[in-house]
């Protein structure tokens, strides 16, 4: 199942061993978009590293930037203003909604309902327009810097976000009428690709994939960062562990992200948008680890620093890498059509895996 395929969501090559239509073994062949980001980080400064993180999981690029910025700020013991924390959380949740909109559109397209693609992208355009006005770009935002934000938010930001939240709340029931309650979709996804809770923990699954199997793993709850410790939201958990459960977890995450934005958007504190740092950032000697919750799962940034201006070793623990390792376990015994539906709910973005 070659690198150019509409259902593999990127350049992923799967070598399938099949018997008729039943799958016996799935062997992923990675490396088509490997750009040696970890080696490049060893010669770049910390501000330059933030630019590289955009391109890893490009659908949640703001959250990737936030991970490295938080790691650097915690290492330097730099306190950013409240305004920065609240805006980072709002933009992070908007990014999560935008990534799930694209996921939902592509999920329908993979099982054959092409209409959902256009509905998902139409709503995603509204978020892209908000991002373009404030951050300057539509996909690789690069808005977070160590010390704060690159620019202050646009004066229209608050009103546009509130208008979007009100609009999107009428759209999610429309998504439910179109796909969730559709009997063909339910037959394609119920009971397919079942993952038990012990396997989810052993394979290192995180994010919606883990939560659909009953494994409570939301980094926003257990290791909160930025303004996430002052909002209340529920963790989206299901117990069946099949494809339909992973689907329902992400639909519920739409509602939870909207609720977080609503709690924060009216009370953005006044203050600076950036704290000055040295032009050349040197982290003190030591090891630092920062976890964030991207739309795919738990992203980890592990920095080993010897006190110089480049990291000695920087490792990105990407959520897609661990999620892909369980594909062989859950797809064996099913048909090729089931594999396509399962891969759509694992929500893989291949540059995140290959780095």
């Amino acid at each position, binding site marked *: 199942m070659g690198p150019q395929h509409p259902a593999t969501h990127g350049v992923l090559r799967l070598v399938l061993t099949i018997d008729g239509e039943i799958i016996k073994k799935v062997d992923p062949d*990675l*490396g088509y978009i*490997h750009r*040696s980001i*970890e*080696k490049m980080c060893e*010669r770049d400064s910390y501000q330059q590293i933030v630019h590289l993180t955009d391109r890893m999981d490009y659908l949640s690029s703001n959250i990737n930037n936030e991970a490295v910025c938080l790691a650097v700020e915690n290492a330097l013991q730099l306190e950013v203003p409240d305004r920065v924390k609240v805006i980072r959380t709002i933009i992070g949740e908007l990014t999560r909604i935008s990534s799930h909109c694209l996921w939902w559109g592509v999920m329908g397209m993979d099982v054959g309902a092409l209409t959902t693609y256009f509905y998902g992208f139409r709503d995603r355009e509204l978020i892209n327009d908000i991002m373009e006005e404030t951050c300057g770009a539509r996909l690789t935002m690069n808005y977070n810097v160590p010390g704060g934000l690159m620019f202050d938010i646009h004066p229209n930001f608050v009103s546009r976000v509130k208008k979007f939240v009100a609009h999107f709340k009428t759209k999610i029931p429309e998504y439910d009428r179109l796909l969730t309650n559709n009997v063909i979709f339910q037959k394609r996804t119920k009971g397919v690709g079942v993952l038990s809770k012990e*396997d989810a*923990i*052993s*394979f*290192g699954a*995180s994010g919606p994939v883990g939560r659909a199997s009953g*494994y*409570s*793993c939301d980094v926003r709850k*257990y290791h909160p960062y930025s303004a996430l410790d002052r909002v209340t939201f529920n963790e989206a958990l299901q117990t069946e562990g099949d494809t339909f459960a992973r689907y329902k977890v992400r639909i519920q995450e739409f509602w939870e992200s909207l609720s977080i934005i609503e709690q924060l958007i009216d009370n953005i504190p006044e203050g600076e948008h950036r704290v000055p740092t040295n032009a050349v950032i040197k982290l003190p*000697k*030591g*090891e*630092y*680890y920062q*976890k964030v919750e991207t739309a795919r799962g*738990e992203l*980890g940034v*592990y920095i*080993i620093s010897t006190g110089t201006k480049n990291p000695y*070793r920087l*490792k990105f*623990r990407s959520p897609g*890498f*661990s999620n*892909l*390792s*369980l594909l062989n*376990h859950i797809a064996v015994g099913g048909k090729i059509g089931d594999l396509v539906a399962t891969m759509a709910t694992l929500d893989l973005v291949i540059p995140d895996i*290959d780095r």
Partner: protein
Amino acid sequence: MTNEALQNNITKWFPDAEAAGLTFSEEESQFLNIDISPNNLIELMSKLKSNEDTSFDYLFCLSGVDWGEELGVVYHLESTLHRHQLVVKVRTPDRENPTLDTVYSIWKTAEFHEREVFDFFGITFTGHPNMKRLFLTDEWQGYPLRKDYEDEINMILK
């Protein structure tokens, strides 16, 4: 459990700590760090998972590191029951043919992570079901993330 309690518990499992190469450290890191020698790695890891007080069932990061003279691996562990975290480090001084034991039988996520470490550092994991390169092509010579890797065509240095 606090770091102190963890340290006390784990010390009890190895009565001869010096022969096992077991040391604890908390400086320069936000977690409790354990250094262990390669021979006792599997014993420590399986006890960390199976013991009910520690129960580290979630391996969330496995990274290879080139320490200059030695090559090694750093494991970040978390317990989903008690929600405490730990770091285990193991080093081997052999740079020609480094080998370590695999932890695939303890945490299944290690399968892909150890293939990645083999690809970039050259550390072979004994007992791994599928020890071959992951990202680079099978014919690639050399191990790129080592500090002494040179490649005039593909590497751009400042």
